[in-house]
């Protein structure tokens, strides 16, 4: 309760009688932004993630700027006479891998895969989870029973195994489902989305169960609104905050999931670089070639940490009871 009054900007000298612009209340968005700004740790995470996204978008430009070779350029001269890669030097800031490819360049390009897989799969998981959760919570009854038990089954399913299975089953020819799921990034995204959406669906369902008993839902029905309208215009706006918080918390999980799949070799296909795949490649000889594992590892840890910090910060900032 340090500075509760900063939430409302009061125009001095304007009493209740001049009601027109007496009190300029902050919109929820402004409030939220102020709170997030004050949370330095979360803000640092946000800055890191913004930089990371810029890095992923401008990867080719960045590589050119640093004057380093592209991610797939093999430089035989960077390997010593026995074919062992050389470590960090002025030419290759983070050293090279077994094929003489620049690790720095590959880490930069690897951020593209990590972010793409994590953000897209989170988007699909949130969309699917929100719809399933809203339908189950709003209609209750047998619809809820069927959906909830299906979610339970999906939660009990080992998703890593599903990923490995799907990847190997779909890695021939045109892939599965008539070419819809092809090996590589698509499989990764589908698997992660399938693994993550039941959690979101459960959270959304719980929220909807309590929201649907509110009188404004009854009011909407008494006005003659259709179910669809009630769900999307009355219930969904109230779900935005929990969905945003939960999404930022599952993004790091999904980044790690993508790394695990790529580590196991069922993720993105070579020569595309991905942090998990680089760590996997390096696991054979990291005793000598430590840099090949260290740098993608550090990138992974920092990214996951940054997203987690943002998630925690958002949770505090969006909590109406918090007074930060």
């Amino acid at each position, binding site marked *: 309760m340090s500075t509760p009054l900063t939430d409302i900007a009061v125009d001095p000298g304007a009493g209740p009688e001049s009601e*027109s612009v007496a009190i300029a209340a902050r919109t929820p968005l402004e409030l939220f932004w102020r709170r997030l700004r004050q949370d330095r740790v979360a803000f640092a995470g946000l800055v890191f993630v913004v930089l990371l996204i810029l890095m992923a978008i401008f990867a080719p430009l960045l590589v050119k700027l640093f004057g380093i070779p592209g991610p797939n350029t093999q430089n035989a001269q960077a390997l010593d006479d026995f074919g062992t890669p050389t470590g960090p030097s002025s030419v290759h800031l983070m050293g090279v891998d077994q094929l003489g490819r620049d690790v720095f360049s590959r880490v930069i390009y690897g951020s593209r895969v990590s972010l793409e897989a994590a953000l897209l799969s989170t988007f699909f998981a949130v969309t699917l989870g929100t719809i399933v959760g809203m339908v189950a919570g709003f209609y209750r009854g047998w619809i809820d029973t069927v959906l909830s038990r299906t979610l339970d089954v999906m939660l009990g399913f080992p998703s890593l195994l599903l990923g490995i299975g799907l990847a190997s089953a779909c890695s021939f020819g045109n892939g599965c489902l008539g070419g819809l799921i092809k090996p590589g990034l698509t499989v990764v995204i589908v698997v992660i989305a399938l693994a993550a959406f039941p959690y979101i669906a459960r959270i959304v369902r719980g929220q909807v169960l309590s929201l649907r008993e509110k009188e404004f839902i009854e009011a909407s029905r008494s006005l003659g609104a259709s179910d669809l309208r009630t769900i999307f215009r009355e219930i969904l706006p*109230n779900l935005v905050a929990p969905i945003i918080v939960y999404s930022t918390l599952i993004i790091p999980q999904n980044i790690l999931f993508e790394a695990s799949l790529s580590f196991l070799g069922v993720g993105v296909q070579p020569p595309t670089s991905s942090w998990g795949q680089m760590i996997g490649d390096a696991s054979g000889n990291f005793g000598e070639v430590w840099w090949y594992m260290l740098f993608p590892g550090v990138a992974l840890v920092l990214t996951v940490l940054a997203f987690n910090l943002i998630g925690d910060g958002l949770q505090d900032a969006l909590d109406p009871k918090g007074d930060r």
Partner: protein
Amino acid sequence: MTADRQTPLIEVRDLVKHFPIRSGFLDRGKGGVVHAVDGVSFDVMQGETLGLVGESGCGKSTTARLITRLLDPTSGSIRFDGRDIAQLSRKELKPLRRDMQMIFQDPYSSLNPRKTVGSIISEPFLIHGMEKDDAKRRKLVEELMDQVGLNPEHYNRRPHEFSGGQRQRIGVARAIALKPKVVVADEPVSALDVSIQAQILNLLRELQRDLGLTIIFIAHDLSVVRHMCDRIAVMYLGKIVELADADALYGHPRHPYTGALLSSVPVPDPVLARERKQTVLGGDVPSPANPPKACRFHTRCPKAVDGTCDVDEPQLEVKEGGNIAACHFPLADAEVAAAVPTSEV
């Protein structure tokens, strides 16, 4: 209030709503039913305000939700403007919703916290596809806000920026947006400060006069009801026990339950209060899952006679003074004068 109060706008006959009691997974279907509303009949005349009073759990809110068809009746009929709406489907009901609106009890829960006032009051127009032009609709909404005593400049504010009374005004504006014939107000002031209650009540009366509204007014506060209503129905355990003009009901209640309710109204004069013989009801309201046989009030009634009241169910009949009451032994004027502070006999 010039509309003729002779033609019934709503005719409710033998309305019944039973809620099944949900039991566990294994013994499903064995649970009984809650007799929330059990054979209620009354008319609502054009332009009048009908009060519906009773303790919590007596079925008054359920009755309101049956009339507005937010709940499906178990049996019985509801004729609205000559048409039975009790069994209509949701689709068939939609056009009727324009004529029948509801004001809710809790202004903190009945307004979506994520929407602006403007969009809350615009919602009825959007749902019914009226006034598609944004600018015109906004003008209509601002006029409505003005009409219910809100500052139209607050169009873009959210409910949490308003006080309870102002929020209830938003709820009223939403209810009258489509110019309905009937407004069902479910305890519209019981969540408000006493000082604010009068403002909202006066607003409702004003709107009733200006728009020729018919109002079904539900409350448990008897002084509020007297201020508002032309006729009053008293409910007990899912049934109407007495129905009379407001003055007749307060002046000479005939049902012992009405008498006990009125007797509990506090008297401001301590001398009078000391002289008064207050009727205090013993016990609790029996469970509506298993209501008493015959007269439902006989377990708590000071006048109950064994062998009559617990065997023979009294029907609603015209009693002395024009009150309609369901009782074998209605209160006599002397009893009323002794116990009821509002008595005029």
